[in-house]
């Protein structure tokens, strides 16, 4: 990695972290468990690195370690997205929402 690449990488890292904070701050405590399982699935993007390693054809060590890494990340991709959706499916409002309560809802959710 050259100095220039490092600089760009650090910029991306810092800005993405700020973006992450900004976006996640707005997620209510109600959804913190789905949040964790979703970010879990997202960070299983290390699958990309594992695929490149496992497919590089650079010898047995690279292939074996890479394949195990592919297996581990793929498990997270599949289970992470599936369980997040399964949890979110269960969240529902009162079946017959009373009118005065409906108007208060967005405010309560924001906290």
């Amino acid at each position, binding site marked *: 990695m050259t100095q220039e690449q490092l600089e760009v*990488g650090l910029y991306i890292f810092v800005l993405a972290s700020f973006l992450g904070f900004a976006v996640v701050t707005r997620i209510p405590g109600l959804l913190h468990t789905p949040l964790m399982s979703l970010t879990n699935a997202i960070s299983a993007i290390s699958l990309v690195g594992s695929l490149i390693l496992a497919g590089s054809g650079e010898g047995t060590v690279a292939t074996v370690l890479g394949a195990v890494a592919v*297996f581990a990340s793929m498990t997270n991709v599949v289970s992470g997205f599936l369980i997040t959706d399964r949890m979110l499916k269960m969240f529902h409002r009162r079946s017959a929402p009373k009118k005065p309560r409906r108007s208060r809802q967005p405010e309560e959710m924001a906290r």
Partner: protein
Amino acid sequence: MSSLVLGLVYLVSAACFVLALKWLSHPTTARRGVKTGEIGMLLAIIATLLNQQIIEYRWILIALVLGSIVGTPLGLLVPMTAVPQRTALSHSFGALAAGLVGTAEFYLQKPDLGGVTMTALGLEVLLGYLTFTGSLIAFGKLQGVVRDRPFVYRGQNLLNLSILAAGLVVVGLLVADPGRSTLFPVLIAVALVFGVMLVIRIGGADMPTVISLLNSYAGLSASMMGFVLGNELLIIAGALDGSSGLLLSIIMCRAMNRSFANVLFGGFGAKGTLGQIEERAVRSTSPEETAFLLDGARLVVVVPGYGAAAAQAQHKIRELSDILMARGVEVRFAIHPVAGRMPGHMNVLLAEANVPYDQMFDLEAINPELPQADVALVVGANDVVNPVARHDQRSPIYGMPIVDVDQARSTIVVKRSMRSGFAGIDNELFYLDKTQMLFGDAKQVIGQVVDELSKLPAKEVAPA
């Protein structure tokens, strides 16, 4: 596929991940968020597989298929009570992947690793392996395979810090000269041991913080992998996960009024019972009386704690809420951030039991309403409703935000026995004049209250 196209696809998938988190901010858009995240992931995988750098597909395909076979039941069959364990397990899988890729990259590139790349690689491997074993221990504790009580001994902090320092020194030596490849296994071993040492000393009450912190580490190690491989998508996705985990751990620490240092090095709940618990009289009540009291209320605030989840009482609680609502009583659920074993866990358990999310309130929303509540019904919660946290500076939970159930006109506490909570301290709430104890297994006792309520004659319910 040209590298420009590949780069653009990665950019699109990074944008998908950001949108996924953005849409997760409300239950009505959250599932769209998941879909978007899936699309981002799929695009990245396909683009990577079509990339000319990949020349060998056989093992990749086998690993992808095996991963899907293991991942599907982990996603579809794991019960909601076991979500914290599953989460810990997936942190350990993610971190293992980062550690393994880092290891292989080291041996492939070792003579000509630059200082910068080696630093990132060192951190990737250190974070990866320590999160791997740390999360496995967390999984064991949550699953009940490993002792839940904190494992503490004299000189533990000194030893742990020395191990961590040793790991950082090894990284430093490798950065100075990547040719010292004999040091690399030492780094791996140190990281693996440190992960175990870090988490065995953590007790059940601190699991929400630790699991969030491990989430953050797993993200950071993926981000470091991005630096090693020069892959911006990995840097971004890892940073999103890392910041999210960090934010959650900060929220959890605040919910217990504790610092990171205190969680990691303090050994909360390790000391057992603090001070002596004097025998004081409590008022106990019966399911029948409870039913009458609840039926006469206008507003009931239910405070479920981990004990309610452990007793599988959430479905009975929802039945209670339904029958009360049908009789014109307004029921609200007050959820403390550390009510479950991970952030937001109690909300998921209640949602699974069919409690609508607009009936669930967090601390800031419910506390101003408690003085208007006729009855506060505490089920399996203890430390998070202890008024001592507000006024007794000597108490270990002093300053912790609590649900102010003592502000309600009357309080009913459903509890198995007079045993103290995680913090090992006595609960002043139980001895208040307006508090009545309803002893018994939460599921069974709440069930009896529901039966009593259904025996009551129908009530004229004023239209809302």
